[in-house]
C-alpha cells in the first residue's frame, strides 16, 4: 500500500445546527436537533411539508465578513448555494493552512459539488415569466448551472487543476471526497477542495419529496408540535426524512504534499468504493450496497472487524433503513459495529448530507465519542446497535461512512485516524 493515500487537512460546514462549526459539533454532542418550521416560502394551507432544517446565514452577523461574501461579490448570485459554499470553502482552506500560490494552483483540484444546485433561481424566474412575462435576469442561467459552484470555488481559490462536479444525488458529498482521492491517487492533483452544498427548500422540490413518500409526513398532533422529534432514522416510527439545507467542505492532500509542507494531518482516507445498483431508480439494493462497503474496507487493507463504528446513510425511510441494516449484516455478520445516524439531528441535506456527516465522523474520532441517534425507538425488524445517547468510544482507528443516492449510486468511505 505505497500508493499515496489522501489526508484530510481542514474542514468547515454550515447546517441546520448552525453557522459556526464548533457550535454545530457542540450541539450534535448534546443531542440537539436543528429541525424547525419551514419558512423558505409561504406555506399553502394544505402544504404537506411544514418543517425543515434551515441554514440561518446572516452575512451581517459574520464579523469579519470574508471578501467572497461581500454584497458586491454576491450581487448576481441569488441562490443561497453560492453563499453557503463560498463561506465553507473559504474557512476550510484557512483551517487547512494552505496558500494556493501560482506555482501550486495547477495542482489544486475542485470536486466540490451539489445534487440540486441553484434550482431555486430557475423556479423564481419561471414563476415571474409565467405570471407577468418578465424575462429572466442575465445571471439566472449561471445561478442554476450545476457546475457553477465548483467554477466559483475555482475563481475564489485560484485553483486551476481539474474542476469537476460529482453528482450522485444524496451521496454527492462522499463522492466528491472519493473523486478527490482518485485524483490524488492517480497523481493528477496534490490538493483537492472537496465538499457539497444543497438548497432543496424550493416549493416544487419539497412537495415532490412528499408526493413520492420520501420526506417526513406527520401522523399525529405530536408530530406537528415537535419538529425536532420528526427525524427518526432506524426507529420503528420512522416516517421519512426531514429536508434540510447545508454545505460543507474538506481539503484533501497527498500525504507527500502534507509532509513536504510541514503539515501534520490527523486523518487519512484509508479506502473508498463506489457502486451502482442497476436495479431501481430510487429504492436501495442490498447486494450492491454491501459490496460497496466490503470493497471500501478491502481497499483500506483491513478486515471488517477493524471498523470501530459506522456513520450510516440512514435515509429514515422504511425501506432505506431496512436495506442498510441488512447490508451491514451481510458485511459484518453478527458483529455490526455501533451505528450513528446524524440525519436524526441535522435532517437530510441532500447532496451535502454525506459531507456534513463525514465531518461529524472525523470530529467523533478525534474526541472519542459516537454521536447519538435521537428520537429512536427500537424496531424489532432492525437488529443494530443504534447509538442513542452520546457514547464514549475512544479507540476509533477506522470508521465506515455510508452514503446512497437516487439513481442507485453508492459511496462508502473509510476514515483512518493517524
Amino acid at each position: 500500500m505505497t500508493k499515496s493515500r489522501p489526508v484530510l487537512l481542514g474542514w468547515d460546514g454550515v447546517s441546520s445546527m448552525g453557522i459556526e462549526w464548533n457550535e454545530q459539533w457542540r450541539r450534535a454532542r448534546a443531542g440537539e436537533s436543528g429541525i424547525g418550521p419551514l419558512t423558505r416560502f409561504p406555506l399553502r394551507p394544505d402544504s404537506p411539508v411544514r418543517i425543515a432544517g434551515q441554514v440561518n446565514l446572516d452575512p451581517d452577523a459574520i464579523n469579519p465578513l470574508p471578501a467572497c461574501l461581500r454584497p458586491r461579490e454576491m450581487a448576481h448570485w441569488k441562490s443561497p448555494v453560492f453563499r453557503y459554499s463560498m463561506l465553507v470553502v473559504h474557512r476550510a482552506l484557512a483551517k487547512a493552512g494552505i496558500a494556493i500560490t501560482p506555482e501550486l494552483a495547477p495542482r489544486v483540484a475542485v470536486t466540490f459539488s451539489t445534487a440540486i444546485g441553484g434550482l431555486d433561481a430557475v423556479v423564481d424566474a419561471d414563476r415571474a415569466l409565467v405570471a407577468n412575462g418578465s424575462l429572466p435576469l442575465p445571471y439566472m442561467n449561471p445561478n442554476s448551472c450545476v457546475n457553477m459552484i465548483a467554477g466559483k470555488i475555482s475563481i475564489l481559490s485560484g485553483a486551476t487543476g481539474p474542476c469537476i462536479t460529482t453528482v450522485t444525488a444524496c451521496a454527492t458529498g462522499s463522492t466528491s471526497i472519493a473523486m478527490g482521492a482518485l485524483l490524488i491517487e492517480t497523481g493528477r492533483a496534490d490538493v483537492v477542495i472537496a465538499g457539497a452544498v444543497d438548497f432543496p427548500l424550493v416549493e416544487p422540490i419539497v412537495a415532490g419529496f412528499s408526493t413520492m413518500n420520501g420526506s417526513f409526513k406527520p401522523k399525529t398532533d405530536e408530530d406537528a408540535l415537535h419538529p425536532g422529534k420528526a427525524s427518526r432514522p432506524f426507529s420503528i416510527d420512522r416516517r421519512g426524512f426531514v429536508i434540510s439545507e447545508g454545505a460543507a467542505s474538506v481539503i484533501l492532500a497527498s500525504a507527500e504534499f502534507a509532509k513536504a509542507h510541514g503539515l501534520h494531518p490527523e486523518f487519512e482516507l484509508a479506502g473508498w468504493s463506489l457502486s451502482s445498483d442497476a436495479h431501481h431508480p430510487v429504492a436501495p439494493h442490498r447486494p450492491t450496497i454491501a459490496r460497496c462497503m466490503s470493497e471500501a474496507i478491502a481497499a483500506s487493507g483491513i478486515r471488517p472487524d477493524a471498523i470501530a463504528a459506522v456513520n450510516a446513510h440512514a435515509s429514515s425511510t422504511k425501506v432505506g433503513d431496512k436495506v442498510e441494516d441488512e447490508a451491514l449484516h451481510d458485511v459484518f455478520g453478527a458483529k455490526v459495529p455501533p451505528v450513528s445516524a446524524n440525519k436524526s439531528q441535522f435532517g437530510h441535506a441532500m447532496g451535502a448530507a454525506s459531507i456534513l456527516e463525514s465531518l461529524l465522523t472525523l470530529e467523533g474520532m478525534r474526541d472519542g465519542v459516537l454521536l447519538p441517534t435521537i428520537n429512536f425507538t427500537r424496531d424489532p425488524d432492525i437488529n443494530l446497535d443504534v447509538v442513542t445517547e452520546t457514547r464514549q468510544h475512544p479507540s476509533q482507528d477506522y470508521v465506515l461512512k455510508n452514503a446512497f443516492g437516487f439513481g442507485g449510486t453508492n459511496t462508502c468511505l473509510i476514515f483512518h485516524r493517524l
Partner: protein
Amino acid sequence: MTEQTDPLLPELARKLVETLGLDMEPESVDPAAPLIGAGLGIDSIDTLELVVMIDKDYGVKIDNRAAGVEAFASLGALAAFIQQHRPASPA
C-alpha cells in the same frame, strides 16, 4: 443643469447600488462620471443586469449598441435616456 436636478437620479443611484451590491452610498455616485469600466467597477455582465432592471422598472429598452453607449455614459445620461424613452403613461 437639468441632469443635476433630475428627480430620477436618487432613485437610479439607489437601484444601481442595490442591484450590483456596490460598496458605497447611493448619494456618492457621481452623476457625471462614466458608469462602465471606470471607478465603479461595473463590467459587461453588470450592464446586462441593469438593462433588464431598466426594462422591468421603467419600460425602457436598451437593445442596441448605440443606445447602450448613450444610456450608460453616466448616471445622469441614464436618467435622461429613461426620461426621453419611457412610455407616455406609466403602467
